């Protein structure tokens, strides 16, 4: 996609400079993300889950040689909980972001391609949902549903994950449907669905990919928010659940920093990683930003 012909004023030397910069962001983001995934997967192979059983270690022990990151007041090793909590955290994001992107991108394609009342309906509804503080609506749902599985929580979060992909895919579809190859397909008698999925969608994949990463990040953010408020999935340990139990036990005022600080750092790095990846994908797909960089 990183074609240089899109920005006429770009000099070859500057183009290489810009590509190097895009790659640098992407490399850093991907490396961080892979590091976090490795922490969750390889960690599982190296460390047994025995350490996070109740009373497995001393209670509320500060970090030391024996237990690298200390323990919570129930004697569970913070490091072991983090290792086993990382993948579920990512899974929520993948499910919620995946559903949101598939639903959103399909709606965006259909709305942008057909226009008219369908388009009005989809884009007004998406715009309305974008202005609603989604976390608060999720709170109402989750407070009645009580403890739920990771999958249920992801599905609920996905309800608010589709508007962004729908919006971005719709606007790209609008500008694409007049292109020659789409006209060509229409004239050769292709059906609407065939045009949408064979002519339009492949060209929109970069935008869909950007939306997906953004939705994964949004999904994780919503799940962290819910769990920090004491809602959502309450049994399977995730990074956010560690934070939430630290809060409800007043870990902040009790000075048990090793309980909440390490999961905070991993979550922060995770969001930064996903953000850097979206940023580089954005720069690679948005000709305006590219031109701005090159100018």
């Amino acid at each position, binding site marked *: 996609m990183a074609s240089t012909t899109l920005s006429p004023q770009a000099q070859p030397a500057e183009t290489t400079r810009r590509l190097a910069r895009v790659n640098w962001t992407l490399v850093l983001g991907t490396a961080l993300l892979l590091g976090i995934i490795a922490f969750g997967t390889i960690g599982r192979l190296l460390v047994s889950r025995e350490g996070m059983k109740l009373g497995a270690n001393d209670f509320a022990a500060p970090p030391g040689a024996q237990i690298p990151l200390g323990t919570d007041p129930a004697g569970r090793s913070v490091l072991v909980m983090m290792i086993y909590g990382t993948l579920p955290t990512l899974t929520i994001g993948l499910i919620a972001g995946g559903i949101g992107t598939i639903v959103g991108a399909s709606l965006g394609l259909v709305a942008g391609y057909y226009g008219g009342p369908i388009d009005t309906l989809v884009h007004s509804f998406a715009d309305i949902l974008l202005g609603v*503080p989604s976390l608060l609506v999720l709170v109402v749902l989750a*407070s009645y549903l*009580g403890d739920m599985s990771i999958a249920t929580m992801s599905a609920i979060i996905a309800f608010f994950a589709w508007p962004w992909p729908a919006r971005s895919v719709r606007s790209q579809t609008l500008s694409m449907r007049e292109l020659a190859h789409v006209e060509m397909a229409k004239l050769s008698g292709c059906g609407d669905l065939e045009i949408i999925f064979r002519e339009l969608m492949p060209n929109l994949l970069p935008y869909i990919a950007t939306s997906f990463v953004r939705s994964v990040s949004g999904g994780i953010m919503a799940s962290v928010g819910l769990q920090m408020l004491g809602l959502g999935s309450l049994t399977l340990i995730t990074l956010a659940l560690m934070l939430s139990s630290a809060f409800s036990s007043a870990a902040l005022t009790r000075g048990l920093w090793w309980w909440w600080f390490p999961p905070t750092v991993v979550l922060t790095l995770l969001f*930064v990683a996903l953000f850097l990846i979206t940023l580089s994908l954005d720069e690679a797909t948005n000709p305006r930003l590219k031109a701005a960089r090159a100018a």
Partner: protein
Amino acid sequence: MTRIGASYFVRRLLVFLFVIWAAASLNFLVPRLAPGDPMAATLARMSMSGDRMEGGAEIIESYRARFGLDQSLGVQYLKYLGAVVRFDFGYSLASFPARVLEIIGRALPWTVGLLLTTTILSFGLGILLGAFVAWRSGETAVEILAAPFVVLAAIPYYLLALLLVYALAFGLDLFPSGGTTRIGASLEWTLPSMLDVLHHSLLPALSIILSSLGGRMISMRSMMVRVMESDYLTLARAKGLPDRRVFLWYAARNAILPEITTLGISLGFVASGATLVEVVFSYPGIGYQLYRAIGNSDFNLIQGITLIMVISVATAILVLDLVYPRLDPRITYTGK
């Protein structure tokens, strides 16, 4: 100068009412669709402890009357909407004699004060920073200045808040890590007491400003880039106008306008994010009340708070949308 057509106004108003109606209806539907009938469970739980709890019978009565559990769903729904229109959310289940609206009323000034200050500050600073970075793009010093804010934009408010608590409250002991006053001190309208409150509010405010600044900066920068491509800017430069004048009055001024519309959308995120910041700092605003209500399974309070917040954000967006055409003479909304 009024460029808002009647049809645009009506359409915006309908969207506003739709959002509130949908949020209220969700509040009505969820308890009835949820598995295990929590309404009955709540009533059962309250009847069990009713004789021991002061005023328990009255809550059950008010609950029954409010939801009219013996009536048909349609009648219940209409009665419920009537109550919502009057902002009547009933009694708090956890702290009984208090009505939901009283609790919200006590907490609201804290949240409004925090959000208003931080939103205005981060909007203003973000716009200035974004405009500056776009104007001087390519200079290494400027890029280095901008980079940390870009990264901060990726971090949710509450995580940044926790990092700040770790660094500034525990590490350096500069700020208190929660609450609004020193322990034991009471809230008064005196200078020391107010300074104490300010001191306690700085860290929550700082975490919201720092993490929302970057997003604003990025979007202002891309808007500036767009404006700087336009012909009238080339003309302004060709006329030999001073650089600073071109920057402030030709480029930045035009790039700010679209930012105001995105301010509306970002308000929803600010409201959600600030809720958790309040939880982190035990800041006695509406978000902290929500956290406590969830802990106490106080469904009336949860519904009241979420609905009030949805209404506030929807109102803010409505006002922004109606003000916007007046600010930008290029925009006309006189029908389609």
